[in-house]
Structures are given as structure tokens and as C-alpha cells.
């Protein structure tokens, strides 16, 4: 295996790892708030579950980046392309927006989730509002994801 491939894989792995870490932390934070609410008001389970799941998407995005890199490198169901060191670094660079933004956005989205869950506990009718405000945080994860996707697809190998 050459150096370029190694660097690119480290990038892909980091995107999946950091996205997953952020989401695991985030879903756990929101989940703690949700269990508190459900213990008092079991009928709100469905509503708070949705809010709890919100910070979980970043992990999926990280995973998506990792797979796209692997596909691009021909590591999934094909033979690996020979990759120069520079191209490897370029692939790593393409992963950087996701590596940095996904965990941070998952963490802060989780904080919003917790607050929205508290709001829903008091006003079950405002679930959609809480959901919308929480999803706003995810916008930047999506932009980072898009930047990564476009770069991964666009880098000449």
C-alpha cells in the first residue's frame, strides 16, 4: 500500500469516527433529558424520541463520507487505485470539513435537543417548533458534508 492511500484512508476513517463520536455523545445527552421527561409523562415518548434522534444524523454523515472515499479509491468491490501522496493529502483535505464540523454540530445540536425536550415537556404542542429550531444547527453539518462530497468527487486521481 502506498502513502497516498494511507493518508486518504486516515481522512475517511476520521470522518466516520468523529461524526460517530459526536452523535453518540449527542444522542446520549438528549436521551438523558428524554428519559427524565418520559418518566413523568410517558405519553410524550414519541415526541421526545424524535428530538432525541436529531443529533444522530451527524454520525450517518461521517459514515457517508467514509464510504464515498472508499468508493472513489476503489476499495469497495474493486481494485485500489494507485494514489500519489499529493492526491492522498487532497482526499484527506476533502474530509476535513466533516471531521471538524460534524462532531461539533452534533454536540451543540444535542444541547438544543435537550432544551427542546424540556420545552415539549411543558408544551407538548410545540414539538414542531422545537424540532425546527434544533434542525437549524444541523444546517452547518450538511454544508460541511456537501463541501466534503463535492471535493471527494471532484479531486482528480
Amino acid at each position, binding site marked *: 500500500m502506498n502513502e497516498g492511500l494511507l493518508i486518504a484512508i486516515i481522512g475517511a476513517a476520521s470522518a466516520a469516527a468523529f461524526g460517530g463520536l459526536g452523535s453518540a455523545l449527542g444522542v446520549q445527552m438528549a436521551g438523558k433529558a428524554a428519559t427524565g421527561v418520559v418518566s413523568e409523562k410517558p405519553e410524550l415518548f414519541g415526541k421526545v424520541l424524535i428530538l432525541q434522534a436529531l443529533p444522530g444524523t451527524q454520525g450517518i454523515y461521517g459514515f457517508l463520507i467514509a464510504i464515498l472515499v472508499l468508493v472513489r479509491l476503489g476499495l469497495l468491490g474493486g481494485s485500489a487505485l494507485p494514489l500519489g501522496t499529493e492526491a492522498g493529502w487532497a482526499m484527506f483535505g476533502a474530509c476535513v470539513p466533516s471531521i471538524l464540523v460534524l462532531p461539533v454540530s452534533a454536540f451543540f445540536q444535542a444541547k438544543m435537543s435537550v432544551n427542546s425536550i424540556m420545552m415539549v415537556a411543558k408544551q407538548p404542542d410545540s*414539538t414542531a417548533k422545537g424540532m425546527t429550531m434544533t434542525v437549524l444547527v444541523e444546517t452547518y453539518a450538511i454544508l460541511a458534508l456537501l463541501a466534503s*462530497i*463535492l471535493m471527494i468527487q471532484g479531486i482528480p486521481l
Partner: protein
Amino acid sequence: MIVPVHKVQIVALKEAKDALLKSLQRVGEIMLITPKENDASYIDSLAEEQLAERATRSLALLKKYQEKTGKTRIEITYDDFIKDNPEHEALLEQIEDCTRKLEESRQELLALKEKQASYLPWEALDIALDQLDAPKTAVLRLGLIPEGQVEHVIDLFNNTGNVLELLGKSDRQQAFVYAILKEDVSAIESELKNLGLTEVALPIIAKKPVEVLEEISRQSASLTTTIQESEEMLQELAKEQSKLKLMIDKAMSDTTLKQAQVTDTQATVFLEGWVRSDRKDRLIQAIEAITDVYDLAEIEPDLGEQVPTVTKNNQFVDSFETITDMFEKPHPDEVDPNPVMSIWYWLIFGMMMGDVGYGVVMVVLFALMIKKMRPKGNALRLFRVLMYSGVSTILWGILFGSYFGVSWNPILMSPMEKPLDMLILSIVIGACHIISGLLVKAYRNFRDKQYLAIFVDQFSWIFILIGVGLFFLPWGKSIGLWLAIGGAGLIVLFAGRKNKNVLARIGSGLYSLYGITGYLGDILSYARILALMLSSSVIAMVMNMLAGMLQSNAIGFILSLFVYLIGHVFNLAMGMLSAYIHDSRLQYIEFFNKFYEGGGIPFRPLTLQTSYVEMIHDSYQEN
């Protein structure tokens, strides 16, 4: 569309009051207004509320004992429903007795178990407990000692010439009975305490421990039978739970009826309320069924009084109203956003999922759930939204050539291979979505005869959006450019038309043009369609690949079926959740802020509360 709601006043004779209210509740067409000069008449609906609460609690307790969880509604005629049925209350009391007995027996059994545990170590003690006091020259006592210290204790007793006998064990402690000569007591006991002795005092009774234990096991056997009997009884009673459900609905309906706010005068009853303008005849019909002596007058709402919002749409659009209502209900004066919103929601949901297989599963799953569970209200609407969106998912899936994550003959493109094209498609869809929002606002302005505003506030932006779009097409460069400049010009010249001063007007117009950054952000936000679509198709692809890797032999093949199943179910669930949330967000934030006011209050008529029953053969009921 939004149905106008009228305010009406009804006056009738007092003797007709109860029957009239019942009839109004049955038809469910009037939303009563709380009288302003309410003489704080105390409403006593406590009995009904308590009954509903008791029945609900019993129903929850019975849940454990029912055999199959059928969710079908109980079909009943109105007359049967409204009749007081003493049998039902008897049933409720029977269930309550039974559960009380069960609970008590369980508590007693628990207490017995504890008692048993405290006697068990002394089972081998062969004297009655009151005999422990009998010896004159020695003391006879019971004690527990930690297991590790047993040998030391035995030594102690042997050395001093006193006696002990080891009995049973309890929780790493050795139980023993010991006899000490009176003169040695203080010395030996202090020694024993150092070794960790716990003295035990059992009740002084004329029975041996073994006899007490026998008695306990007899008692607990009889308690166990009682528990078993009660449980069997509850299982039997659980078969009658439909009666409980009826009772809950009846009690809830009675509660709302009691709480209906009306004003009484000496000879008449007076009530005010909202009624849908297209259903007034049904209201009149309901009154005339009771009395001929009445007066119904339509009046203007008070200044600043909020009129409830009623929307009437076909079944497709009606389902999607639940999405809008979760955000805010439309204001009664504005254009109903639902017809336009429903189509976009449907289209974008399908794009986000974009897989024929998943679409088929959604359609079948939610059609079955609607058929089996017979949900009502918002649950039914949500299920329908997901069912309809399944169809759109199938259509997009064919265009993208995606079948459970397997790529086959894409008609339009395969987003995995050409994400850039997919991004452009997402953004074009977004621009069209936003333009349609501006058009709704333009229609509202047209209705309100604000013709200049149509051009300046809506068409100008539409020109810019279309112009920028054309600019990127090979043949549309110059048309696009001029269209965008024209739109921008309209905004700069007219957006600040409220200002008298020309400079202030241009300044304000320029500031309005700065709103283009908002439009840019809104349109870029539609890139999430690509992100969600890609993430669900990549995960589907990975699941297929994982399953494929296992299929080298027979066992692997079976395992691979599990991987397919679990993987795709997980992906479908996550995909639906994401699509539901992000599609809603696109409507609420990007679409609605172009025209939507919201802030309507729901129309909640006085009606029968039917969570479990369904009225049949009732000409008054519909839906």
C-alpha cells in the same frame, strides 16, 4: 381552502336546555364561546371526570391480562352509547375489587417471605420459643456470627465450659443457640460482641420455629391461590374491556357536556358560538330536532376577537394539514397554504428517500396500519402523509434507478455517480419551491387589491431567481441577466415606496435588495435533499454489500437475509425520520417565510369524545 366561520347566538327555552346541548354535542358543529360575564357558576363535572379516570386506570391494569392486542374500534349506535348502563359500573367495581385484592395479597405474600427468611436459620432449634426463658441458672440466647468467626466462637465456648449448638445459615452468617452460666454472661458476651455477634430476639410464642415455618408456608400457599384466582378472574374480566372503553368515552363526553358554557336567564338559555358557514343547516337541524321555540341569529365578531380557523380540502391535502398545524394553524384571513404545501412536501419527501423498494414498503406498511389500527385525527393524517409520500418515493426511485439500494437503469441519473447533477436538481427544486411561495403571496395581494406590491415585492424576486437560473444556461445568458437586473431595479426603485424622501426611498430599496443573501441561504438549504438522498442510498448499498459478503455458503446465505432485513429496516426508519424532519423544516423556514402568517386557533366544537368507539347508523356523524 379556508372556510368562513360565523358567530351565532342561540336562544331557547330553559326546559329544552339539556336536550338541546346533547343534540348540539351529537352533531358536533358548534364551538361554544365562554360567556364574558360569567357569574363564576361552579361547574360540577367532578363525578364524570373521576369515573373516566377510574375506568382509564382499570383499563391500563387490564392490559396485562388481555390475550391479543386488537386495536379495532367498538362500533355502536348513538342511542346505545348515550344510555346509562349500570352493568358497566358494576364491571368497573368488580375489576377494582379484584385488583385491590390482588395487590393486597401480593403485599402480604411479600411480608410472609420476609418473615420466613427471618425464621429459616432457626429451623433446627428444637424447643418452643418461649422456652428460651426457662433455665434458672443460665441464659439461653440466639445469635448470628459471621462465618469466618465460627471457629473462634466454638473455642471460646469450649474453653469456658459453656454450651452452643450451630443451627442454619443466613447470608454468610452462622445462626446458633447458646447457653451461658449467669455468672459468665457479661464476660462472654463482650467477647462475643468483639467477634461480631448479632443477638437475635424472636417473638416469644409457644411454638417451635419449625412450626412457625410450616404455618407460614400454609399461609403463603393459600395467598398464592388467591393471587392465581384473582389473576384468572382479571383475565376473564379483560375480555369485557370493551365495556370499559365505552365507559371512558361516555364519561369524557359527559364531562365536556357538563362543562359547556351557557348563560341561563329565568326562562331561557342563551349560548354563543362559532359555526362553519357551510354547515349551518346541520346546526339548525340539530336544534329543530329538539325544539321549535328558538332563535338563531348571526352576529359580527367583537373587535379583536379571534375567529377559529377551519380548512376544507380533499383527502390528499387534508392529510398534509397536520404538517402545517404542527407549526401554526393558518390565520382565517389568509390564503390556505395547504394545497401548495402538500404537493411540495410530497415531492421533496420522495426525493429525499428516492428508492422504489422503500417506497413500496412505505405504501404497504401505512396502508395496512390505517386499515388495521383505524387511527383518527392527526395520527391518521400522518399515516396518510407517509403512505402518499411512499408513492412519490417510488416515482423518484424509478427516476434514480434505485431498488433497495441496487442501481438498475436510472432514467434521470444515478445520484451516487453524479452528485453534482443531483445537487443542481435539488437547488432547482428549491428555487421553484420558493417561487411558488412568492406566488401564493402574490395571489394574496391580488385578492387584497395590492397590485403594485405584486410586482414590487413578489415578481421582482421571481425575476431575479429565474434570471440567475437562466444565466447559467448556454442560451439564456443575456435574457437572464436583464431579467435579474430588471427585478433588482424594481426592488431598488419601489421597495421603499413608503418613504416620501427620494434618497431615503432608494436607500430603503437598496437595503431590501440586500435580502438577496437570505434567498441565497434559503436556496442552498435545499442541498440537504442531496445529502439525505445520498446517505440513505449509501447505507442501503453498504447493507447489500455486507449481506453479499456472507453469501458464500448455506449458513451464510441465511445470515445474509438477516443482514438485509435488519439493515434495510434500520435504514428505512432513519431515512423516514430524517426526511420527515428535514422536509418539514424546508416548509416551515424556507417556504412559509415567503408568505405565511399563521397564528390561527383551532376550531374545537362541542362534540362526543370518541377515542375507542365509532358511531354507526348515525345520520349526524360524518367522516
